[in-house]
């Protein structure tokens, strides 16, 4: 007789043994399993809706990979990549470099929960989650490799995380905090609850829709395929959060949610905000980054925190305000410091400016004069005059340049501890830093290192320190910097 799935599944998933020869605290040490340490009894109701078996997982994943590899064979024909819009190509390069190897860090996170999560069903789901994240690292690496003959800078898909490039330092700082240096409870709330149910929708679903419009169908299918995995293992977060709150640690839960919401916002405005509003071809831009954020991220987050009667983060008003300007300021920063990036950056043209002003009614008034000034400088004095002079101030928490300043409103702030001064782009970054001072205080930002003489201050040496081979790999103006030299041998005198 063959047992039906429901007859055996719970027996197999909920294997929470009673330990006789060791103490439960030794099997699940608080430092790695999480705080507060609760006995197994507190976790026994842990459950999630997918309840996937390993057999189902293998069958489903094989079908997904078959579909993706089929699309790759069909869509990787010579000439297809050449038809992509230049801005879109740069967007993909930015995305691949920032995310590909962070997925391997997520493997470590899932594996930590697969060992130290407090319920066996949680550990089962995290085991599958680790396999998911391996796949999410491999897919962009494969796609990046396929794009190498088209654009040599796609080697940054793999290379980026091994460099000191400043965007990557900021991304690593976040993912080290969220993925690599967190216990199982914190991981479930930070990674699964906040990042995966909150923010990945915008990167993987909204961006997939845009990829379809941009005729990059393989990228679209890859993003959508990855998001189906994310939607499943994101379910880890809810029952962990529920258990934490039911057992009296609402304050810790609220802190983790607030902290990671802000940290994720910083990364996503930098990566997705500038990509959606400046690099997606205008012909396929339907909604703005802000509109996507409102619909896909903010609404979902409000429902999630309402489910647990959590408060909105204390910085909510600043976050809502920043939706209107932070990524626009960041785009100016990317443009002005483009020679320190591995992708090209767009200056919006007239049509794009009209679109931006429709979506953000004060855009032209706020940012128009600066883009005008850059345009005039290019015409009058050449490209060099459109590059920023002097180092930007870099935040000691998010590690991003303090580019979120709304003209007329300076949100930056400092803090002195033990004779060392730290600078922050905003109050929330300072608040996180102060809450976990010992965790963050020892790190030196790129600017701290330059000031201390530990990192070169002149651009050619700084390029080398960042792993950028100038001028072959460094970013240019998207429209005026496009030429074929990247694919051609380096000219010799």
């Amino acid at each position, binding site marked *: 007789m063959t047992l039906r799935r429901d007859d055996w599944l719970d027996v197999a998933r909920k294997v929470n043994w009673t330990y006789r020869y060791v103490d439960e605290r030794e099997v699940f040490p608080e430092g790695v399993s999480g705080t507060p340490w609760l006995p197994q009894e507190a976790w026994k109701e842990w459950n999630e809706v997918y309840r996937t078996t390993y057999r189902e997982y293998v069958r489903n994943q094989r079908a997904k990979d078959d579909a993706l590899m089929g699309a790759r064979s069909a869509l990787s024909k010579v000439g297809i990549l050449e038809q992509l819009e230049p801005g879109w190509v740069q967007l993909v390069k930015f995305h691949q470099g920032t995310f590909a190897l962070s997925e391997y860090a997520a493997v470590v996170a899932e594996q930590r929960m697969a060992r130290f999560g407090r319920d066996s069903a949680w550990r089962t789901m995290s085991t599958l989650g680790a396999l998911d994240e391996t796949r999410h690292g491999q897919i962009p690496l494969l796609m990046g490799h396929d794009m190498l003959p088209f654009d040599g800078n796609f080697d940054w898909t793999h290379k980026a995380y091994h460099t000191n490039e400043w965007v990557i330092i900021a991304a690593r700082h976040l993912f080290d905090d969220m993925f690599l240096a967190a216990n199982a409870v914190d991981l479930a709330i930070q990674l699964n609850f906040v990042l995966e149910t909150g923010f990945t929708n915008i990167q993987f679903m909204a961006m997939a829709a845009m990829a379809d419009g941009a005729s990059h169908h393989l990228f679209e299918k890859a993003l959508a395929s990855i998001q189906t995995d994310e939607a499943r293992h994101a379910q880890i977060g809810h029952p962990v959060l529920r258990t934490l709150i039911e057992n009296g640690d609402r304050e810790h839960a609220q802190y983790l949610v607030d902290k990671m919401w802000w940290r994720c916002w910083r990364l996503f405005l930098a990566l997705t905000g500038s990509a959606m509003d400046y690099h997606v071809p205008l012909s396929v831009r339907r909604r703005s980054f802000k509109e996507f954020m409102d619909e896909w991220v903010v609404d979902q987050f409000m429902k999630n925190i309402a489910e647990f009667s959590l408060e909105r983060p204390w910085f909510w008003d600043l976050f809502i305000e920043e939706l209107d300007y932070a990524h626009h*300021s960041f785009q*100016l*920063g990317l443009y*002005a410091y483009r020679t320190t990036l591995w992708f090209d950056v767009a200056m919006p043209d007239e049509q794009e400016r009209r679109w931006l002003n429709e979506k953000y009614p004060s855009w032209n008034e706020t*940012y128009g*004069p*600066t883009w005008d*000034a*850059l345009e005039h400088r290019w015409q009058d004095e050449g490209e060099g005059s459109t590059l*920023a*002079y*002097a*180092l*930007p*101030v870099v935040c000691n928490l998010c590690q991003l*340049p*303090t*580019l979120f*300043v*709304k*003209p*007329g409103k*300076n949100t*930056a*702030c*400092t803090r*002195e501890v033990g004779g*060392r*001064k*730290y*600078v922050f782009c905003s109050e929330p970054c300072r608040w996180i830093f102060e809450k976990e001072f010992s965790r963050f205080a020892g790190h030196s930002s790129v*600017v701290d290192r330059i*000031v201390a003489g530990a990192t070169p201050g002149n651009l050619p040496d700084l390029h080398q320190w960042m792993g950028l081979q100038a001028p072959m790999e460094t970013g240019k103006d998207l429209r005026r910097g496009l030429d074929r030299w990247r694919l051609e041998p380096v000219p010799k005198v």
Partner: protein
Amino acid sequence: MKMPEVVHLFGFMSDDFLGRVVFTPSDQTIGRLAEQLVSWGWHPEVRGRYRVTNEAGNVLDPQLTIAQAGLSSGDLFTVDRG
């Protein structure tokens, strides 16, 4: 004679969009500091008076030196026009 200390400050121009690191001798005046920051920004051609404030929002006298105004390495200041 003691050489003035070189300090690094974090300057924000109100019509700019980012903070910039300014290395400057501490005996530089606040007025010159503001001009230096403006000259690095995107609108140096816009002339006029500047109002410099420290992080607490206190207005700094343009005639004072950086040291006299209480600024030292790692402090931030904001420059407003008018």
